């Protein structure tokens, strides 16, 4: 057991180092940060001085080592663009992304399960066929287009919802939340739908097919034969048994909701880490890019590690394999 865990953790660290290396070696193709830091009246001497100051004249290996040793201590350096510590900037921006991810995750799960059950029970109804057809739109349209369409309909034409931003936020300790104000809550609606729509349709289709499978089982027929009410059969007996794969998929999707919030955040000018990252690319803000990529990979690696360990706990066959190899 312990050997297995240690091996998995070791693998995770190797993956992290590799991600860091790939990311870091790509930064040299992203462009030269110096041009964004100096005005048009700069001289070559100014350029050289700043390059030395930032350590950009040093060999790649040394830059990478400096980054790693800093990151290990939780120090991601100072943003080239804002001149402020990257850890400060990211912790300022993280609440926006996490709140958006939480709301769209919730939206995806609740609506996904609800509609999934509905379309499974009313398999041949007009409404469920309509929902299934519309869900194709959700899967196939790109996120930015959905966002722009929603803005156009609900902000520009109907003037019901704000077109961008997070509304008014309230500081709770170090956490800026939009949950406590009306404008903050209203501002969440469109971005959360945009971000969660894909996951929602995914969960809905998964629940539907699992439900259809389960509804054919003998114990469901038996439950019906016992004269149980339809609602009890559908929700207590059938739905419960479909949820295991749904939970696995949802857990894995949580990571991608956070990571792929970039596009939604750009369309809605949502001040989260995704927007920060897009800006960092634009201005060649290497410390911010590096920190973001490392955090996202830490998140994915952790989720995968937890899933691996859960499987290990659930599946006895893995334990046997673990001992034999």
């Amino acid at each position, binding site marked *: 057991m312990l050997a297995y865990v240690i091996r998995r953790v070791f693998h995770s660290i190797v993956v992290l180092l590799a991600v860091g290396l790939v990311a870091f070696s790509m930064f040299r*193709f*992203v*462009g*030269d*940060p110096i*041009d*964004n*830091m*100096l*005005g*048009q*009246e*700069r*001289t*070559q*001497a*100014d350029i050289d*001085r*700043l390059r030395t*100051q*930032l350590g950009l004249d040093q060999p790649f290996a040394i830059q990478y080592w400096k980054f790693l040793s800093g990151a290990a201590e939780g120090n991601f350096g*100072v943003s*080239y*663009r*804002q*001149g*402020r*510590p990257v850890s400060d*900037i990211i912790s*300022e921006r993280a609440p926006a992304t996490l709140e958006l991810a939480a709301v769209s995750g919730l939206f995806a799960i609740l609506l996904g399960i609800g509609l999934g059950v509905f379309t499974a029970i009313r398999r041949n109804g007009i409404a469920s066929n309509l929902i299934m057809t519309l869900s194709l739109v959700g899967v196939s349209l790109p996120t930015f287009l959905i966002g*722009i369409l929603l*803005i*156009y309909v609900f*902000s*520009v034409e109907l*003037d019901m919802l*704000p*077109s*961008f*931003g997070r509304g008014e936020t309230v500081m709770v300790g170090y956490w800026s939340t939009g949950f406590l104000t009306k404008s903050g809550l209203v501002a969440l609606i469109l971005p959360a739908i945009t971000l969660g729509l894909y996951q929602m349709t995914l969960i809905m289709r998964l629940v539907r097919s699992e439900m259809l499978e389960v509804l054919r089982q003998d114990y469901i027929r038996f439950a019906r034969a016992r004269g149980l009410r339809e609602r009890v059969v559908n929700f207590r007996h059938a739905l419960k048994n479909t949820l295991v794969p749904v939970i696995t998929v949802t857990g894995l999707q949580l990571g991608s909701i956070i990571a792929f919030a970039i596009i939604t955040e*750009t*369309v*809605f*000018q949502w*001040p989260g880490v995704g*927007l*920060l990252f*897009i*800006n960092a690319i*634009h*201005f*060649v803000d290497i410390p911010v890019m590096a920190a973001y990529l490392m955090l996202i990979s830490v998140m994915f690696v952790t989720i995968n590690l937890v899933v691996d360990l859960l499987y290990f706990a659930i599946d006895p066959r893995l334990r046997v394999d673990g001992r034999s190899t």
Partner: protein
Amino acid sequence: MLRLTLVSALVCALGTSAFGETFRWASTTDPQTMDPHAVNSAPVLGFLNNVYEGLVRRGKDMSVEPALATRWEPIDGGGWRFHLRQGVTFHDGSDFTAEDVLFSYLRASSEASDTASWFASVSEVVVVDDFTIDVITSSPNPIFPDSIANWMIMDSGWAAANGAELPAKDSENHATLNTNGTGAFMLTGRQPGLKTVLEPFGGWWGDAEHNITLAKFTPIQNPATAVAALLSGDVEMINPVPIQDAERLSQSPGVKVFQGIEARVIMLGFPHEAEVLKYADDAGMPNPFTDVRVREAVAKTVNVPAILRTIMRGNAEPASQLVSPAMRGYSVALAARPAHDVDGAKALLAEAGLADGFSFGLKCPNDRYLNDEAVCQAVVSMLAQIGLNAELDAMPVRNYWPELRNDNYDMYLLGWSPGTFDAEHPIRFLAATPDADKRLGSWNFGGFSNSRVDELLPMIQSEVDYAKRQAMLDESAKIIQDEHAYVPMYVQPLIWGARENIELTQRPDNFFILRWVTVN
């Protein structure tokens, strides 16, 4: 009871109108710092012009007018004496004196600052008394007052108390997020990249023309989101409006579009020093662009009116020289562009022994100027008419400047906006023979060199007589035009959008000045 409610409602209604309005605006770029000396870029200086002030400032027509200095006169032997405005206070209530000017000079000209080039000719700044200050220059510098409109004065006591004596570029200090200027607005909230809040400064020395009580700035990177925000009334003003949306937006109810021209001239540049071509099929061939006839052929072939009609949708003005007509020192006699003449261009190429044309590489940014890549594509197809086959390589600006610095081009696109709004500026940066020690020709990537232009430049810089100076500027501009050192194409347009109830003034430097905004 009812009467009381009525009265209070009335008071409230009166109150709102008397107190003016909240004004929200958006632009693509967030000013990256609130420090007026740390970065010499238009988004920062334009924004901070609302908060800080210089000794002089620019009016609605870009002319220089008194600000913190009420008048100024040249000193014998080189330099200027500035008489400072009395009774001015900073936002924190401390008094403005000559000490603050001296401090701001030292701060803005320090090595840590990005604005040091404005003071290249200054040898010393001397405090004469509390409200008189002398700026001594090594030789007479007639345009010095014109060149310091963006040199902003910061309170010396405040800077010292908060440890912000020097600007910080790759780290943070108090002045990065806080301000203490004398301007019409003070900074009351700053969340970098999210929101910046300004409020009118009650103790401002000038008469307020605006009726804003609260101004909120939000950066919106995505142009489509910005347009939607304006249409839905979530912001009162956006800058810029994408060219392709301008027409539609101007026809939308509740919204209007402000159009003008910017100071920026878009031009093509050549390698003047390179031995050989570096790209496409003819890589290795002796550099044909060293021949003035080939450069002239390019100038004759590029159909600028067609580019302006199609790609810029009629929003830009053609350019004939390195500065636009709105700049000081523009040469009126040289206002004509070379006529579009494909046959003449072919004849010139034949004369140069290149009747069959050649292939070369054109470098172009794709996110720096309005529709830059589309313009380059148009240039490629136009040059193909005379057998010049350009291979276009368009890239983000963050990769573009390093390529140009490393001479990786056979032809390139460049936009230039003179920081001093004077014709001397592009000569210094684009036409003078590159010389790092003298800070000359730092954007002259192609290495254009003309001894007469080099000779004229220092004379232009120190000539006090306006007519003589203009004659020398005309001579330089004529040489640069005759040599086809660059092919100036057009002056970039400026397109802003605002709600119908907003009155504002659009200045060619793309600075958005809040004190000229009225919310009706």
